[in-house]
């Protein structure tokens, strides 16, 4: 896929977190757990505000892998929101998906990609796609706001209809790079 070198204003205007929220609703996701990331700020707010969803703040990301397994045992669908640094925390819990075939829908905002200003984010960010692959989790990429609805729906179908583990990696280019400068 050709990558745009700079975001256009029209792409910025597309409310891609709302598109993902709508996709989660249409896929009947009821439990949404998260460790916050700035890139997930709006989606987390939308899920908290949605009476048809239970938003579950986690202390660490692997809790969400287990929560999703429990939800599925009870007949509900779950999604798990995190930034890429949290993928490493999930490693052993992903055993649940690999050995039991639990559906798992992870939405991962990427750090450590092009333009990252915090070097401590780079190792895990760069390892994220391969770490997921090694753990048996399929990955999809979301690069452009206008694709958010289609890609999120595809990811959810992979999770709940194929009953697989899938991570939607949301590009740092889409989210924007954290500046580390005081807001004025």
């Amino acid at each position, binding site marked *: 896929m050709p990558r745009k070198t700079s975001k256009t204003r029209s792409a910025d205007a597309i409310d891609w977190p709302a598109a993902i929220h709508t996709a989660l609703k249409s896929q009947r996701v*009821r*439990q949404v757990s998260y460790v916050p990331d700035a890139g997930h700020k709006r989606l987390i707010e939308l899920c908290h505000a949605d009476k048809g969803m*239970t938003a*579950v*703040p*986690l*202390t*660490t990301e*692997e*809790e*969400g*892998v*287990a*929560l*999703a*397994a*429990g*939800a*599925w*045992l*009870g*007949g*509900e669908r*779950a999604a798990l929101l995190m930034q890429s640094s949290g993928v490493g925390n999930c490693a*052993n*819990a992903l*055993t*649940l998906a690999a*050995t*039991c*075939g*639990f559906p798992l829908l992870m939405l991962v905002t990427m750090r450590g990609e092009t333009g990252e200003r915090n070097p401590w984010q780079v190792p895990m960010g760069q390892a994220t796609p391969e770490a997921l692959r090694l753990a048996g989790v399929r990955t999809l990429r979301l690069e452009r706001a206008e694709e958010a609805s289609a890609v999120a729906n595809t990811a959810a179908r992979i999770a709940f209809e194929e009953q697989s583990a899938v991570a939607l990696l949301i590009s740092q280019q889409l989210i924007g790079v954290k500046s580390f400068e005081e807001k004025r």
Partner: protein
Amino acid sequence: MKALNRREVVAALLERRDGLLVVAGLGAPAWDCTAAGDHPLTFPLWGAMGSACMIGLGLALAQPERRVLVVTGDGEMLMGLGSLATIGVLRPGNLSIVVLDNERYGETGMQKTHTAYGVDLAAVARACRFADARIIRTKAGIVAVRSGIYRARGPLLFQIKVRPDAPALVLPPRDGAHLKQRFREALLGTQ
């Protein structure tokens, strides 16, 4: 004081279990639950250490009309301490946790766990906004545990001090896909 026998404790909690949904932590708690009677509505773990309470939370949120019990060990609970804080945010009234506390990592050579040094899991649970959380040392206490699990408003945690012995292995099925599927069919019917 003579600590309790883990098999007798679990048998007492799981007899006449009605619609109780059970998640069993890996190792001895899973064997204890199996010794009390393999059941499709028990989901025993063989790995993913630290996950038991969060599986219980997902299940409790999905099935608010059913009682959910997590039976786990002190080692497994210690690995998932943060999940007590997460449960304390949601506070599901139908969730109970029983920690069979032998103060040892029983599957790996009986090394002492943190509870052997006095770490108090029930106090952690109380600090995490559980409706009730206690250390249980006596058979009389087990009656109250049973009453809590089946009737009281949760979330509840009972840290039950048990003897550090190793009763005979009574193993559940180890095919995870089978364990998942039989649980869902027993609870939800064939879908």
